[in-house]
Every structure is written in C-alpha cells, then in structure tokens.
C-alpha cells in the first residue's frame, strides 16, 4: 500500500517537473523575453543589464530551478499584453470559471444519475428510449454548436436568457460571485448547460448500464421477494452498488470540465480563465500560457492521483491483489 502510494506520488511529481520544463521552455525559447520587455530604442548596455537582472546569463539548470521556485510561490511573471502580474489576472478570473464549473458539474451529476436510473428502470418505455437516442446526438454535437444552438433558441428567438457575460456580480473579499443577483443567475443557465451536457450524457449512460447489470443480480430479486417497495429496491439496493465506477468517472471528468470551459467561455464571452487562455494564444502572451499550463496540470495530476488513491481505498479487492503479490 505504502509502496504503491509513494510510487504514484513520485510519478505525479515527475509529470509536473516535465510540464514545468515545457512551460519554462516556452519562456526561454519562444520569442526573446528581452525583445518583449524593452522597446525599440535600446542600447546593448540596457540589454546586458536586463539580462543580468532577469538572470538570463545563468546556466540553463539554474534558470530552470529559479523558474520552478517562482512558480511554486505563484509568481509567473508579467503578462506581455496587459502589463500586470499573471497571478493577479488569474486570481481575478478564477471565480468566474470555478462557479461555472461547479454549477455544470452539479447539473451533470444530478441530472446524469437521475436520468440514468430512470432509463434503466423503464428500459423499454417510450420516454426512456427517446432520452437514449437524444443522448447519442448530444455526444456527437461539438460543444460550441450546442452553445450556439442554445443562444439561438433562448436568447435570439425567445429572449429569455442573456447570451454573453456574467451579469451583475457581487464582490465578497477577493471573490466575485454571480450567485447573488438575478442577472448573475440567469447568465449562468446557458453556459452551464452547454458545459455540462457532455458529462451528463456520459454519467447517464454509465449509470444506466451499471444499473441494468445490478438489477439482474439475485439480491435484487430477493429484495423484491421480501416485498420491499420499488423505490427502496431501486435506490437503496441497486443504485448504491453502481456508485463505484460512477465516482471514478466523475472524478476524472472534473478535469475535463475545467478544460472544456475554454470552449464554453469563448462562445458566451464568459470572463473566466479559459477565455484568458484563448486570448493569450491569439496574442502569443507566453507568461499567461505558461501559467495556465502549470495550473491546469497541477489540477489534472492532482485529480488523477486522488482518484487512484480513492479507488485503492474503496475497493478491497485491489488491496488484496497487491498484498498477495508481495
């Protein structure tokens, strides 16, 4: 157990070091930082002085180490485009993305499980079949087209919901929230559906197939024979036993929600980290790109690690296998 944990943590650390190397390489080799910071009228003296100040005359390894040291402290330098520290910009943008991701994640999990159970219990019903076919279309539609479709129906034709932005936000300390105003809540609806739809269909199909598997088991038949009510059998006995793979998938999908927020944020001009990243690519704003890369990889690697460890803790069979092998 301990050996497995240590190996897993070491692997994650190695991945982060490699990603850090890529991010550092972007700084070092994509465009000349000196060029980006000094204007047209510069002397060789200026260049040398700045080179010394930034430590660019040091050996590669020293520079890389210094970069990591700064990155760990949350210091990613200054955005070429906005002229402000990248960490400030990221902190300012983070609440928008996190709120959007939280609402879509909740939507995907709640709706996904509910629809999955429904389609499994009424597996030959008309509504259930309809939902299953509709979900196929949902999987094959690209995210940005779903967003445009929703905007067309609910903003252009019906005029019910806003098509861009966050609405009014309330500031609490360093956090800006859209949960407390009416326009803020309205603005959340379309983007969170767009972002969560794919994950919802994924969870729904998974819950459905797991439920169908479990409902065939003997203990379900016995529970029914004991005269337990349908609701108790379906939710207490069946659903509980399908949760294991569902939790794994939900954990792994959390990362994708943050990554796919890039697309949703662009469609809805949502002022989050994803939109910041896309703009950074368009204008080749290297410090922002590097910071986003580091941030998202810490998140992905962390989630993967947690899911692996959880799996190990929840499923006793895995532990038994490994104990037997040693």
């Amino acid at each position, binding site marked *: 157990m301990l050996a497995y944990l240590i190996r897993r943590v070491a692997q994650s650390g190695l991945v982060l070091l490699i990603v850090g190397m890529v991010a550092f390489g972007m700084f070092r*080799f994509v465009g000349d930082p000196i060029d980006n910071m000094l204007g047209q009228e510069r002397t060789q003296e200026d260049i040398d002085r700045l080179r010394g100040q930034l430590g660019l005359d040091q050996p590669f390894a020293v520079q890389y180490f210094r970069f990591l040291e700064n990155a760990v402290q949350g210091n990613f330098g200054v955005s070429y485009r906005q002229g402000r520290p990248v960490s400030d910009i990221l902190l300012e943008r983070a609440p928008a993305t996190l709120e959007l991701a939280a609402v879509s994640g909740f939507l995907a999990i709640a709706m996904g499980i509910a629809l999955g159970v429904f389609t499994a219990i009424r597996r030959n019903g008309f509504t259930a079949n309809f939902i299953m076919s509709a979900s196929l279309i949902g999987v094959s539609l690209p995210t*940005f087209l779903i967003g*445009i479709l929703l905007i067309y129906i609910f903003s252009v034709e019906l005029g019910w919901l806003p098509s861009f932005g966050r609405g009014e936000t309330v500031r609490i300390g360093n956090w800006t929230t859209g949960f407390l105003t009416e326009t803020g809540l309205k603005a959340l609806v379309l983007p969170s559906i767009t972002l969560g739809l794919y994950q919802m269909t994924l969870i729904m199909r998974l819950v459905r197939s797991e439920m169908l598997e479990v409902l065939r088991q003997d203990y379900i038949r016995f529970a029914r024979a004991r005269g337990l009510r349908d609701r108790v059998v379906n939710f207490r006995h069946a659903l509980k036993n399908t949760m294991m793979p569902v939790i794994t998938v939900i954990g792994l999908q959390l990362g994708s929600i943050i990554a796919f927020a890039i697309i949703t944020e662009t469609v809805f001009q949502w002022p989050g980290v994803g939109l910041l990243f896309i703009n950074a*690519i368009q204008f080749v704003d290297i410090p922002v790109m590097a910071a986003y890369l580091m941030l998202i990889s810490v998140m992905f690697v962390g989630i993967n690690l947690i899911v692996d460890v959880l799996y190990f803790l929840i499923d006793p069979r895995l532990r038994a296998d490994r104990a037997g092998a040693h």
Partner: protein
Amino acid sequence: MTDTPNLEKTPVRDKSRFAVAMESDFVYAFKRSPVAIVSTVVVLILVLSAVFAPLIAPTNPFDPASLNLMNGFTAPMEPNAFTGDTFLLGTDDQGRDVFSTILYGMRISLFVGVAAVLFAMVLGITLGLISGYFGGWTETIIMRTADVQLTFPSILVAMLIFGIAKGVTPVEYRDQMAIWVLILAIGLSDWVQFARVVRSATLVEKSKDYVAAARLIGRKPGAIMLRHILPNVLSPVLVIATISLALAIIAEATLSFLGVGAPPTQPSLGTLIRIGQGFLFSGEWWILLFPAVTLLALALSVNLLGDWLRDALNPRLR
C-alpha cells in the same frame, strides 16, 4: 534438389480478386447495414464535392474580382434587392456565395483532418512498432510520454502546441503557416491511440514463428517491422484512423471557431461558423446554419462509419 515445397503451386485461383472481395464477410456485413451504406454515401458525396469544389462552386469566393459587395446579405433563394442575383444558400456580409464558401471550407477541413490523422498514424505506428519490438528503455520513454499526454484532453494539447508553434513562427508567416501548424497540433495531440494499439499488437506478433523465421534468415529489424509485423497489425489501426478522422475534423472546427485555427483568408468550416455567429442576432441565419449543418453531417457520417467498421472488423462481436 531440396525438399522445400514449391510455393508457386498454390491452388489455381479461378476468380478475380474483385469477385473474391465481393464474397467476403466484410462486404456481406456492409450490404446488410443501412447505417453503413447511408454514411458511406454521405461521406462520398461530401468528399467528392470538396475535391471538385472549383468545378462545382458557382463562384470562387477567394477571387475578389468575382465578388460584388452589393450582393451582401442576400437570403437563400431570394433575388437580391439591388442586383437581382439569386444564390442557393444566400451570401455573407461581403457578398460571397455561402454555398461556394462551404465547398471550399470543407476542402480545408477535410485536408487538415486527413493530413493530421495521417501524421498521427505514421508517428504512432512508428513509435508503437519500435517500443513493441525493442522494449526496454526505448519502450519506457515512449509509453510514459504517451501516458503523460493522455492525462490531458487532446483539444487542450492541440491548443498548446498551436500556441507554441505560433510563437515560434515569425509574424509575417503566421497566416500562411496556420494550416500546417494546425495539422501539426492536431496530429501531435492524437498519436497516442495509434502507438498504444500498435505496440500491444506488436508484442503479440513478435513471439510468433514467422517473425522468428524472418530473424533466422537474417532480415534486419527495420525490414521485419515494416514487411512482416506491420501488415498484421493494420486492421485495428484502420478503425482508429476512421474514428480519429471524425475527432480531428471536430477538433479543427473547434480550434478554428475559437480563433486559434484556420485564418479568415483560408476559412475552414469552423472559421465559417465563427464568422456566422456574428450575424446570429441580426437575423442572417443562413451564414451560420449551412456551414454548421455541413460540419455535423461530415463528422456524424465519418463517426458512424468508424463505429460500423469497428464492429465489422472485430470478430468477437459477431
């Protein structure tokens, strides 16, 4: 002189190769599946109209001489108020025929998609064969790299590669190079699937007698990998390639839609949708709708074909 059996004396084939192919299980399964037939027809129509776009398209949307600004925003099948010209699918803000821009846009979408998948395939097959055949340190490095890359969604990897490549190219070449950078980015984000499948198939094939025989008669590793092992691991590669093509087309459209892909001077279907989105609120729905429907038809039919191919080539599912 020797006891080796005469290889020339195979049973005489009394049917042509074509006839044999027509009687195979594969063709039989194809004829029995309406989904496969319909999606093949749709793919064929779309690919052919993209290839022959210059012959089919009523105008060349990138030739300024053929454009008339007065034709801007003409609705589909309605004569323009000023010039009286009628367009099948209407025109955009600059008076470009939407039908023609879709045909030319699909050319770019398909070219980027096919080229990216080919690139990913060659890279993945090469690395997969090498790591499966040689094993050891080479395998560890290649497959761990693949694992690290798989941690991240491929669209994110493609965006990053696009951003870095854009930073490396000098400003004046950026628009010209955009298509090639796009192919590089999507291809590099997609090689892992191929490498994994080829590696595991190579591991199985490597231990078979025919490989040992080839090694015994002194063939070089490169020749063994390419001439002996590769033909035997190709059928799963074909399935992955088809599904990858659908994903690559959608990835290209997504990147172009986000403004980090094909430039407006060489619009793909994604760029056209990006342009069309700007006119959603002013009521010119056709500029957005027709490219979007074309993209959907293309991606969906390639996807369905890939699904069918996977089932048809997998004997366990029969």
